[in-house]
């Protein structure tokens, strides 16, 4: 006997349809796809080793053998840019996912249960929001020291309040909905209600926000690495590459140009996807 | 009521369509009528019959995805649809004014009543601020708002719905327009206030003598205020006559059915009484006469094939119905 398709599945399919109709999102997804592929197959794609230095070939302009030129230690910039995707994606994903794991449940619980729990969680959220996120991350790094994982954690701390506030808002609205009240009236257990009703409502805005946070995180990682507070050399990081290139900017502008473009493209890809998702969810809500 | 003058507004075969993703909505599909000077004409029909769209088409304020696709509109001899859009700003609010349905949202919340009145006067009549202020307060008195000097400096949220509607009417009339279009101006008000506003409109019309195009879904109001009536259905004007004549002698089956279930002034959009069938699908209307699926007198082979033309059956009484075509 054929079972009826789950309504949730249909909703997901419809949303996916909407997303793929959105040109921006599609472009973003394609670019992101390319970036992810580049990150995974960096070793195969990059023509040169990103770490070994060839001082004789320092600061060469772009040419056929070095598509993006070389940096001050003679390393091929193109290869370094390719390897840089790994660092960017790693920090972006790790920090955001961590922030969601900590922030989303707390916000949801605070919004749903209200009372003392909510007051405590709201206070913490407000306090975290009262410090600009860069400075919050800076503080954490000041305690933990520099390094790729420390940076990911620091950014996670900075992004947690965003998700706390987001899920809290959704939970607050959801718990007033008729079907939630009905569920409570029937006597459904609280944790079932949260899992089956509140959580699914949180997912669309969470996904949109997560994508946008990925975009910020890429920029943030670059900034902190630029300040030597992020990834430690010789691991290639776009931000770090920019700080190295700064001194030689006038004579070798390409060494400062290309890493920046890489950051820009990656961040833009996430933004495009986030915008497309937001529009897709919006359309569904309205029709 | 002042005697009828020459024709002021002539609408010929107006067509306004909305081009949506789900299809083309023919909101106004060939409407023809005339409003004379000093005349009050009622435009009556169900929700969705195209009354408001007709009004906004006259003002040429149809937003995408809508567009006026055909017809002509003559106002004081000038054809409005061929004018450059910028010229319309000189006509709106000055020669033709319009009052909308919901007074609670018609006024800008961040500016005072006075500011919103004065800007019309300074722009259209080039009055100086002090002159404009004086005139604005005069208008507030005209619409019977108590303590007009104080109200002048107040913000819309400090006024009740009835008062806001009076302010809107005052603004509409402040430049002495020849034509006032009132789009269901009392539907959103409570019953007592409705009566007050209707009385006010009647008085103003007698005092000032402007023509009024009164849009409503309520025959009671028509009977009270209007000399002529136009009945609209599915974007078309089916019947037009002097009010007295129409009430005594409704010719179109739709009009007859409406009379039999005079609706009470309750919720908007409520389906009128017991006319069988469904209102027509705006994207895919019935062929021929749009009313034929619900018409007890429909002639098979005729009413479902050919659209009836608007003909003058008696003096001043026009109908678009095959039953009355052969006279």
């Amino acid at each position, binding site marked *: 006997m054929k079972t009826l398709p789950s309504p949730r599945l249909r909703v997901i399919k419809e949303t996916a349809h909407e997303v793929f109709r959105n040109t921006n999102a599609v472009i973003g997804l394609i670019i992101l796809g390319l970036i992810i592929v580049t990150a995974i197959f960096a070793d195969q794609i990059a023509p040169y080793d990103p770490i070994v230095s060839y001082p004789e070939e320092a600061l060469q302009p772009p040419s056929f053998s070095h598509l993006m030129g070389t940096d001050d230690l003679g390393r091929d910039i193109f290869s370094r840019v390719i390897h840089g995707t790994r660092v960017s994606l790693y920090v972006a994903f790790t920090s955001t996912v961590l922030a969601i794991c900590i922030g989303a449940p707390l916000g949801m619980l605070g919004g749903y249960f209200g009372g003392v729990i909510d007051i405590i969680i709201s*206070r*913490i959220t*407000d*306090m975290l929001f*009262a*410090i*600009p*996120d*860069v*400075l919050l991350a*800076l*503080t954490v*790094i*000041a*305690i933990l020291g520099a390094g790729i994982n420390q940076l990911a954690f620091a950014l996670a701390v900075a992004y947690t309040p965003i998700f706390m506030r987001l899920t809290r808002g959704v939970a607050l609205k959801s718990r007033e909905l008729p079907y939630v009240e009905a569920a409570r009236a029937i006597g459904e257990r609280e944790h079932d209600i949260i899992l089956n009703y509140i959580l699914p409502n949180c997912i669309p805005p969470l996904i949109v926000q997560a994508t946008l946070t990925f*975009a910020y995180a890429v*920029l943030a990682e*670059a*900034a902190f690495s*630029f*300040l030597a*507070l992020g990834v430690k050399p010789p691991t290639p990081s776009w*931000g770090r590459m920019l700080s190295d290139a700064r001194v030689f*900017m*006038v004579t070798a502008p390409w060494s*400062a*140009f290309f890493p*920046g473009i890489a*950051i*820009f493209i990656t*961040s*833009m890809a996430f933004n495009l996807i986030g*915008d497309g998702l937001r529009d897709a969810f919006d359309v569904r809500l309205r029709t | 009521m002042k005697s009828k003058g020459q024709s002021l507004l002539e609408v010929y075969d107006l067509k306004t369509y909305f081009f949506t993703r789900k299809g083309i909505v023919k909101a106004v599909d060939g409407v023809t009528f005339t409003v004379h000077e000093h005349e009050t004409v009622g435009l009556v029909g169900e929700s969705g019959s195209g009354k408001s769209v007709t009004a906004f088409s006259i*003002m040429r*304020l149809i937003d995408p995805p809508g567009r006026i696709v055909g017809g002509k509109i003559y106002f004081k001899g000038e054809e409005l649809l061929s004018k450059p859009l*910028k010229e*319309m*700003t000189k006509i*709106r*609010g000055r020669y033709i*004014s*319009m009052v*909308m349905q*919901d007074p609670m*949202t*018609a*006024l*800008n*919340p*961040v*500016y005072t009543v006075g500011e919103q009145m004065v*800007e*019309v006067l300074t*722009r*259209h009549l080039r009055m100086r601020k002090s002159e404009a202020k004086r005139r604005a307060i005069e208008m507030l008195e005209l619409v019977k708002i108590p303590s007009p000097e104080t109200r002048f400096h107040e*913000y819309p*949220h*400090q006024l009740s719905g009835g008062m806001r509607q009076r302010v*809107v009417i005052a*603004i509409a009339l402040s430049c002495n327009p020849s034509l006032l279009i009132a789009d269901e101006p009392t539907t959103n008000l409570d019953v007592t206030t409705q009566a007050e506003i209707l009385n006010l409109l009647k008085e103003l019309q007698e005092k000032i003598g402007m023509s009024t195009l009164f849009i409503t879904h309520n025959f009671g109001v028509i009977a009270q205020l209007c000399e002529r009536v136009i009945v609209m259905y599915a974007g078309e004007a089916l019947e037009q006559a002097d009010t007295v004549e129409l009430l005594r002698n409704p010719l179109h089956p739709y009009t007859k059915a409406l009379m039999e279930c005079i609706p009470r002034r309750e919720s908007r959009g409520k389906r009128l009484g017991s006319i069988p069938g469904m209102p027509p699908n705006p994207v895919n209307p019935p062929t021929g006469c749009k009313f034929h699926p619900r018409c007890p007198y429909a002639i098979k082979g005729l009413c479902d094939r050919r659209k009836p033309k608007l003909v003058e059956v008696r003096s001043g009484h026009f109908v678009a119905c095959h039953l009355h075509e052969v006279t």
Partner: protein
Amino acid sequence: MLKHIIKTILTGFLNLFLISILVFSIIHLLPGDPITIMFGMWEQNPEQIEFLRHKYGFDLPIHIQYFRWLMNLLQGNIGESIRYHEPAFKLILERMPATLWLVFGSMIISLSLSIPIGVITASKPHSKRDHLGMIFALIGISTPGFWLGLMLILVFSLYLKLLPSYGFVDPLQNPIEGIRRLLLPSLTLGVILAGTVTRTARSSMLEVLRLDYIKFARLKGMPERVVLFKHALRNALIPIITIAGIQTGYLLGGSVIIEQIFGWPGMGRLILQATYTRDYFLLQGSILVYAALFFVVNLIVDLIYVLVDPRIRYER
């Protein structure tokens, strides 16, 4: 309305109090011995270290330490910068004007760009100009600020030699030089910020333009220019101001890097130095001052709301 402002102030103070606990605990969250970490660079003598430990009260129980610290703080004393040997607050306050000028300049550039673009794109959605505006916004939010700063320096200072790339001059004392130096850093932060604010301006305008009173303004015969900039914009400002306020946080944070790039002697460079040299007293002071500044900004935003929307004036 007064109630609302008092509530905001009280909430702000509560936040600052909580932040002070957070800031205080920075030193105590350090892996290892705080004294060694902080002073280890300058002082290796164990007796001196013990002396410093006692001097700064690190041998006292933690709640007493906090209390002492808080008392000192309220008297305006957060300790001495370990590196500069001057009271931390003094250093921070000296650097504050430069940062404030940068934030101010960036906000001006940002609003001057985003409000007109937002209004113009909203007036004709899905048109060519709308797409251009949105592309501009997208570029703004995706561009790394410090890279933009470097590129601007490259073009305007190093190649074209038009504008200086280094240093700060007080515009109040020397307007021309001051603004010349302020231009590039403000442009950097401002353009990036404009990306976000433009989007908000556009969506806020779109919301407002749908409303009845806009229709009525047109029915009154008001030309489109007046409808957009007088009737619609003022109503659309509230979300725009809100975002601008929140994004000032971004400006405060972003100024840290931009100050580094442009050699701008502001709080940002100071806090970076503090981080590099583990000058924790200075770091603590800086965080507190930034948080306090942000709080003041939010307060100003609340006051602006009152000016813009009369409903708030009478309601709350």
